[in-house]
């Protein structure tokens, strides 16, 4: 299913993975919420150009991989050249969301085992994806390596936007380190599922590390039937 050269994996919307609702189901509230998020991010560009963005959550299963994948796709729809990277090496899920094979990816490129052009997947026009790649046991060292940092710096010049999926903050601190390589971070919190204290601690840690938190996405908010007739939405706080 992957292709080399200029051919894309998906050239027809109907063949898109259902997970990419921001593109496939354009008229839904959820897609609209993603576009709102997109607009809010582009409006934050005053001091420094925001090109590289990572997403984090406090615990797993908060929806961050879904959000970052859709956000990246929606930016590519603005004819911006986008690269989406799965940096959740502990439990990579991006390739599942897009029905892709995860044979080689980020790990293989950064460790010079494979060339970037051999691993990157041209999922749609303007939308490239780099899956996590080979499983390695020394993930922390990899995340902290200058090789990874340099890789991101290098790709910064080649793309308009780079989106990076990270593992949850608890119990792994990879996301904090990756935030140092990016221009801004998005924190995803699933409504009603997170512990207030844990969130507080996470915020303090982010402040300490001087991470540029672009905003917080409140996910899985139940909208009352009275208002919209839908019961699934995302809102940017």
């Amino acid at each position, binding site marked *: *299913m992957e292709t080399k050269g200029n051919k894309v994996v998906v050239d027809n919307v109907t063949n898109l993975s259902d997970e990419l609702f921001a593109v496939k189901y354009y008229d839904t509230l959820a897609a609209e919420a993603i576009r709102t998020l997109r607009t809010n991010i582009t409006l934050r560009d005053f001091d420094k150009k925001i090109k590289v963005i990572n997403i984090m959550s406090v615990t797993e299963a908060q929806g961050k991989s879904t959000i970052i994948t859709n956000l990246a796709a929606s930016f590519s729809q603005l004819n911006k050249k986008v690269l989406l990277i799965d940096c959740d090496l502990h439990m990579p899920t991006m390739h*599942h969301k897009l*029905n*892709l*094979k*995860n044979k080689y990816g980020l790990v293989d490129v950064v460790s010079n085992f494979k060339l970037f052009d051999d691993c990157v997947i041209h999922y749609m026009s303007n939308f490239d994806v780099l899956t996590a790649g080979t*499983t390695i046991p020394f993930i922390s060292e990899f995340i902290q390596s200058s090789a990874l940092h340099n890789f991101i710096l290098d790709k910064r010049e080649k793309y308009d936007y780079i989106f990076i999926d990270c593992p949850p903050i608890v119990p792994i601190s990879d996301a904090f380190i990756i935030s140092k390589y990016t221009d801004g971070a998005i924190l995803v919190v699933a409504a009603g599922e997170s512990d207030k204290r844990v969130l507080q601690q996470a915020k303090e840690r982010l402040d300490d590390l001087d991470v540029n938190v672009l905003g917080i996405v409140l996910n899985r908010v139940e909208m009352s039937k009275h208002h919209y007739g839908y019961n699934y939405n995302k809102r940017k706080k």
Partner: protein
Amino acid sequence: MIDIHNHVLYGIDDGCIDYQVSLELIKQAEAEGINKIILTPHYLKGSMYNLESDELKVRFDHFKKHLRSDGVNIEVYCGNELFIHYQLDELLTDHKVMTLADSNYILVEFAFFDYPNENDEILYNLTLAGYKIIIAHPERYKYVKKDPNFCLRWLDKGYLLQVNQQSILSSVNNLAMRMIKNGFVSFVASDAHNYQRPLSLKRALSLVENVIGEKEAEKLFITNPQKVIDDELIINDSYTPIKKGIFERLL
């Protein structure tokens, strides 16, 4: 009835050792009303169960001819019981191992004691490559015995489960039967190896009929196996998690 899992093709794995044993098991099967079987010798890369398709086909054709000349009317098909391995999709693409009866269904088994997370990724890749997964005898795995809802990780992905007939006969409230009651199971097969583990389904069918009724039981023994042979899609979306019994909750 149709049997989709057995080791009756002799001289390949830990199943029948020679033609005589095979013939007798198949004749018994025919007598009790089994009219189609898929022969599924083990394949485990790196082990002594490594007979590849080209040789397997030769032995299968020879076996089929021999059966016909001995008056056996059962329709026979060929396949493999594939032990999970990260190279399975390559082995299938290179036609070194077989799907079930030339369909897109593959019969996959796992280690009994341990379930590494890589298995899920391997199954995912096989699904991406277009194969439909049938998991062999999940009721025999330690991690399923410990928690039958372990199977939900497979069912939620659309993989189908096959239980062994002997597992159903084993005791009154056995695990296999509980799985059947909760809609986990799509196939019952013999996993026949020898006289002690024969090619038999009749008793199991009768027990299953008592529990879920004739119409539903027929699916597990006839309709679904036929769909495998015809390479038709089988969807199982009517399963429910198994509730723990009182004693299990106390543990």
